[in-house]
């Protein structure tokens, strides 16, 4: 421990009246891996948080490490776990919960949350976010950078098409009717502007799930060992998606790339798009026209799955490190910090209290789209998450793409996806 730490530690201990003498030991190290999945100076923001935390808590030293995409981060975390020295804390997809449990790499938070104060903290999050964080009666993840799907629309193009630029489609029928008016074809029959765009690479399962929820289907159970891809609601969803492109021709044919979708929107190639709230800051900075953000249209009901990343606690870390990490997690999820994180990135703030802060109220007043994701949370459901999650979602994803390309009928595609998921999940029952 260097002199600066010593003095600061003593000061903090005396000032805050801590019972444990901070000068008696070296600071507890908390290694922390995080991914970056949206634009902006994320690493700088996280490094700043870690430094601020260590300043307030000199007995703990948090070392954040940028570990790539979500996929790269879980590869690094699990490889480190297998070699014996995993990071104490990591941010991974909330849907990786079962994978982390199956690899025996994660420790539930419950044993560190004994007091009534701790329980209150746990109850402070939006319940929709806890669905992908709890199973078997334990809490395995704490919501951090979470998102949902929303609809973005171009107000100029709505006006040109004779639609009310302030009114987003509220139902599937309206969404289709609007899209038909918004699709423009030239003399040769080529489409110059599409009505709507729902991407189908990378996260096709996620977007389909939104439509399935809207049709009343729940695609996986809470234990993560059973899927319902052949549910009539799922069929209704896939049929609607395929019809938009193949029957009504208001959405580009073939699969639509997730990454270029915002660009298509900026280039006015599509008048509406469905994508993550995490793109909000991106759209705000790059759209050269007035745009709106809305809750997804309803079929039988409204709905969207949640998405994004949770904090996970390593099983192999020492108890003291785990405890320090929990303290850091609690600090990171304080309402003021959650509000700031949401404003900086576009992620949904993880607790109602965060939306009650002055900073967030001011931001939402000046920029109303920021509140849309929150308003949708009351309709949100758990994101598709099962054991062997990547294999199961790939089975669904491949078949959605096959249906969009016309090589399989929607009901055949969903039956195939369900059969593959059954084969993979059988051993987990």
């Amino acid at each position: 421990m260097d002199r600066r730490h010593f003095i600061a530690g003593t000061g903090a201990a005396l000032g805050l009246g801590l019972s444990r003498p901070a000068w008696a030991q070296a600071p507890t190290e908390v290694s922390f891996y995080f991914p970056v999945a949206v634009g902006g100076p994320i690493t700088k923001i996280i490094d700043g948080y870690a430094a601020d935390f260590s300043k307030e808590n000199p007995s703990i030293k948090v070392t954040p490490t940028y570990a790539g995409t979500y996929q790269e981060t879980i590869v690094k975390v699990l490889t480190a776990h297998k070699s014996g020295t995993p990071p104490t804390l990591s941010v991974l997809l909330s849907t990786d919960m079962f994978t982390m449990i199956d690899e025996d790499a994660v420790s539930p938070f419950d044993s560190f949350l004994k007091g009534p104060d701790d329980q209150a903290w746990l109850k402070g999050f939006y319940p929709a976010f806890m669905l992908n964080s709890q199973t078997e009666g334990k809490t395995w993840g704490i919501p951090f950078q979470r998102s949902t799907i929303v609809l973005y629309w171009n107000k100029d193009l709505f006006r040109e098409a004779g639609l009310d630029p302030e009114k987003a489609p509220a139902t599937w029928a309206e969404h289709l009717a609007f899209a038909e008016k918004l699709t423009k074809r030239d003399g040769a029959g080529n489409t110059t502007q599409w009505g709507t765009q729902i991407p189908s690479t990378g996260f096709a399962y996620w977007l389909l799930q939104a439509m399935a929820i809207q049709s009343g289907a729940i695609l996986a159970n809470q234990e993560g060992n059973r899927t319902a891809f052949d549910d009539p609601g799922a069929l209704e969803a896939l049929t609607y998606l395929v019809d938009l492109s193949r029957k009504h021709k208001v959405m580009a044919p073939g699969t639509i790339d997730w990454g270029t979708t915002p660009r298509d929107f900026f280039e006015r190639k599509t008048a509406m798009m469905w994508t993550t709230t995490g793109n909000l800051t991106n759209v705000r900075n790059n759209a050269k026209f007035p745009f709106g953000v809305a809750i997804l249209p309803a079929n039988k009901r409204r709905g969207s799955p949640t998405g994004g990343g949770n904090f996970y606690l390593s099983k192999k870390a020492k108890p003291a490190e785990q405890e320090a990490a929990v303290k850091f997690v609690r600090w990171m999820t304080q309402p003021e910090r959650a509000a700031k994180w949401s404003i900086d990135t576009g992620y949904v703030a993880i607790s109602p209290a965060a939306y009650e802060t002055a900073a967030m109220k001011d931001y939402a007043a000046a920029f109303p789209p920021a509140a849309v994701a929150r308003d949708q949370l009351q309709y949100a459901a758990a994101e598709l998450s099962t054991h062997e999650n990547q294999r199961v979602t790939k089975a669904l994803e491949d078949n959605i793409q096959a249906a969009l390309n016309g090589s399989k009928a929607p009901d055949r595609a969903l039956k195939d996806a369900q059969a593959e998921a059954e084969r993979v999940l059988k051993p987990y029952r």
Partner: protein
Amino acid sequence: MTTRARDTLIGWALLAPAMTLLVAFTHWPALASLIESFYSTARPRRPARFVGTANYEQILADPVFWQAFSNNLLYAAGTIPVSIALAILMAVWVNDRIPGRTFARVAYFTPTVLPMIAVANIWLFFFTPGYGLLEQITGAFGLPSHNWLGSPETALAAVTVVAIWKEAGFFMIFYLAALQAIPPVLAEAASLEGASRWTFFRRVQFPLLMPTTLFVLINAVINAFRMIDQIIVMTRGGPDNATTLVLFYIYQVGFSFWDTAYAAALTVVLLALLGLVAFVQYGILERRVHYR
């Protein structure tokens, strides 16, 4: 100690550093994959156990593997001949005394220096339906718009084009070096005899380039099974596995599904396949290669 024994010792000592690296990072992992391919994937609640050839039987019955395999053959058939032909063409072209020769050489070689991930991101926008570069060109001729990466019929061809563009310049360097090693007297003799440019290429340059062609061919084959960066960026194997190549599938099984034993078995199959190809090329083709 005899001189001979000492020479042997020094020889091995000189070999040791490279040998250690090779054994540690190439031979041992290959062997470990082979061993692991006969076991089941270890899970914390289910340790690995010997399963014999079960993983290999699974490969035979795995439709995604077979699709990846046939995709890979098409990808190889697309990239190898075209990139070699282009490389020879470019090399012969920039070997002559033409104005701006250095500039042309640099231009052809540039794709090789750029990182594939960056390149793939640029190509992703070339292929974007509607306003991508390719669409702007075809659109100028009044052709209908096409979703190049989003249709199973064209997605594989699209990623193949990127590989060709990336590789041709690299192979050109080898041909250029080989062309410069051909004595100029041969060109003078040919022109005295009144040989046409094409005859000179067909009867003199091309045969003398055969050893280079063999070398390039082996590299091209290996690359056809090895180069997958653009798949990850551009299509992630989609739509519906239309662009899944064998190595990409191995990566997916190993690091997305965490089914390491099955990934090991797939790796062994790929290694055996490449070993066979190298054997055919070195063992059989080499004898037919025209050395001076």
